[in-house]
């Protein structure tokens, strides 16, 4: 993006009538054009809002981060540069560079970094922060030529790497990967000494544009893919199972098929992060079972579910897998080496992402896997991610059990246990994650920034209910979130979401009953809005209200229909 384009975008964006998204840039330098690039980038992400970008005081990085904490910001952006660790590392300084000075610079850098870290930790409690570690070359203060790393440079880099490692463990603080920025902005094209001296802005425009675009990626609300369906022959392994046999297919160095092992290991990593992995293959199911049982497979076969091996169209297999997973095609990637199979699936499921596996081209396989990493990437793995596959398996067992039980299964039959937690844990990112990614059982589809969520929960009389569930088939983890305000005897529910994995267990009835028991309201208002995908929530409300809900619907408590036999699920309540 050119600066002139950024300025035009910012001008056009200022005409928007939506609410303002307040962003703070905390830097030790004058962020000048970086602000314009950032506003332009963010205006594309938050298309309905006006983007307001403000900055702080020159030369006071830690203080500016602290001001982010106290300001009413939605996002904070923190580009750290070497002079923030010690001004003597900047072009504007006239301090001497002697051996003693360099040792003292390391001492100062450690002390300043500690203050920066503490400020980042505090600020990230209430808002999302995007941080870049120093992006500009170090000044030539040490004795070594540029191609040799000396103890001074390595010591400084160790200090900032330690800072990055520490703060990256916060769910609301995202550190820019320097390898990514290296790809987008070559090191030699980053520093603008003239601009640094003239205006206190050390970046060339191209580097400022690349940094702003990278910051955008860090805060952009993405929907990582949830499932990957893979072919087997010439994809999960090299060879054709039906022709080469169970021990003829390979994924090793000896058969020059190691790229397939790399792919298998990557699938295993995805599965460990909670991504669903399934197989759709035109193959003999008995042979497939044997091949997936080989003990040298580089992915745990128990992590692959379901396995659809048959001689029918792939789209039929994909359809069954989506039903078992209970997720939409738009959340899934289908990987196959055969373009015809990809086209057939794409024709039936236009929303599915189809990726062609390039057998025989190791470099292309590596590129494909890097691309898949970005599609499935997320900031952190949560407890619920680890048990997702288990809960899907248990849902299938539950469905099978229900179909066998003539009168249906009661919560007692299931050994169901619900924990309704009314505490407001600041460090638990799961409730907001659930709110921001749930589509089907969602009161209004509203998404929140970290800062908005913090404001909602810190409002007077606000409440948060987080429901966890387990039964004899296993735990589902935290599956439902309700948030709102209880004022007098009026209860207003602003947000209500429930994971699709928790459907058909009557958890929504229990949550409603628990709210009524806790707050004893005379009236319950639902901040309801119709969305393209919230049919399950709408059906539930229609059932308990006795009529189709309208936006802002309020119900007198006595008119809420909660079947007594359903709300009798054993449960534990935690009051915060």
């Amino acid at each position, binding site marked *: 993006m050119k600066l002139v384009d950024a300025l*035009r975008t910012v001008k056009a964006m200022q005409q928007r009538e939506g609410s303002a998204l307040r962003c703070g840039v905390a830097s030790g330098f004058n962020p000048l*054009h970086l602000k*314009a690039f950032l506003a332009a980038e963010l205006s594309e992400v938050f298309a309905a809002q006006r983007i307001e970008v403000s900055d702080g005081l020159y030369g006071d990085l830690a203080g500016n981060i602290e001001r982010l904490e106290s300001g009413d910001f939605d996002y904070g952006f923190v580009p750290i540069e070497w002079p923030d660790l010690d001004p003597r590392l900047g072009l504007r300084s006239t301090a001497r560079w002697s051996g003693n000075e360099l040792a003292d610079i390391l001492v100062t850098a450690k002390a300043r970094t500690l203050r920066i870290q503490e400020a980042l930790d505090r600020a990230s409690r209430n808002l999302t922060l995007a941080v870049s570690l120093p992006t500009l070359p170090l000044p030539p203060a040490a004795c070594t030529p540029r191609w040799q790393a000396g103890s001074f440079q390595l010591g400084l880099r160790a200090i900032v790497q330690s800072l990055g490692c520490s703060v990256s463990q916060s769910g609301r603080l995202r550190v820019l990967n320097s390898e990514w920025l290296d790809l987008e902005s070559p090191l030699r094209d980053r520093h603008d000494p003239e601009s640094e001296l003239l205006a206190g802005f050390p970046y060339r425009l191209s580097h400022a544009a690349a940094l702003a675009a990278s910051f955008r990626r860090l805060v952009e609300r993405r929907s990582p893919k949830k499932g990957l369906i893979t072919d087997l022959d010439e994809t999960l392994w090299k060879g054709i199972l039906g022709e080469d046999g169970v021990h003829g297919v390979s994924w090793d160095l000896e058969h020059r098929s190691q790229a397939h092992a790399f792919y298998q290991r990557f699938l295993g990593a995805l599965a460990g992060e909670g991504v669903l992995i399934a197989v759709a293959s035109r193959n003999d199911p008995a042979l497939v079972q044997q091949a997936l049982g080989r003990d040298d497979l580089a992915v745990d076969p128990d992590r692959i579910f379901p396995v659809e091996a048959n001689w029918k169209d792939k789209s039929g297999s994909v359809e069954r897998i989506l039903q078992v997973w209970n997720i939409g095609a738009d959340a899934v990637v289908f990987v196959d080496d055969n373009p015809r199979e990809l086209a057939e699936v794409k024709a039936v499921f236009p929303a599915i992402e189809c990726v062609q596996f390039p057998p025989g081209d190791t470099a292309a396989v590596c590129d494909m896997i890097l691309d898949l990493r970005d599609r499935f990437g997320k900031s952190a793995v949560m407890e619920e991610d680890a048990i997702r596959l288990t809960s899907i398996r248990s849902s299938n067992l539950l469905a099978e059990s229900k179909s066998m039980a003539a009168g249906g299964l009661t919560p007692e039959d299931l050994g169901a246990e619900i924990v309704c937690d009314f505490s407001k844990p600041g460090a638990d990112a799961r409730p907001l994650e659930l709110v921001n990614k749930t589509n089907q059982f969602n009161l209004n589809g509203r998404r929140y920034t970290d800062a908005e969520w913090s404001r909602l929960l810190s409002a007077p009389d606000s409440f948060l209910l987080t429901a966890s569930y387990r039964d004899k088939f296993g735990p589902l983890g935290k599956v439902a979130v309700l948030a709102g305000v209880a004022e007098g005897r009026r209860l207003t529910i602003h947000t209500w979401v429930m994971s699709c994995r928790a459907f058909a267990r009557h958890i929504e009835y229990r949550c409603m009953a628990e709210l009524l028991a806790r707050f004893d309201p005379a009236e319950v208002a639902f901040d309801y809005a119709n969305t393209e995908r919230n049919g399950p929530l709408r059906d539930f409300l229609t059932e308990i209200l006795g009529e189709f809900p309208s936006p802002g619907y309020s119900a007198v408590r006595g008119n809420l229909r909660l079947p007594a036999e359903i709300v009798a699920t054993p449960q534990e309540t935690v009051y915060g």
Partner: protein
Amino acid sequence: MDDVEQRLTDCFLAVFPDLDRNAVSAASSQTLPAWDSVAGVTLLAVVEEEFGIAMEGDDLAALNSFDGILSYLRQSPAFTGGGPGF
């Protein structure tokens, strides 16, 4: 209005979006209240980017009006290049 003047006008309008296109040629730091130090630095950055040149620090003081910048551009080696110029 030739190509250089047209492009320079667009640079001014990007940095001073409230400025009337017909008033651009008369714009200067003396006549335009919005032309503060930040706007001045931004304007020069946009002009450098648009014309692919680097303005020298010693020349910046004279670049405080549309005419001044236009003259600078017309005399820039990047444009004259030893050739006929404009």
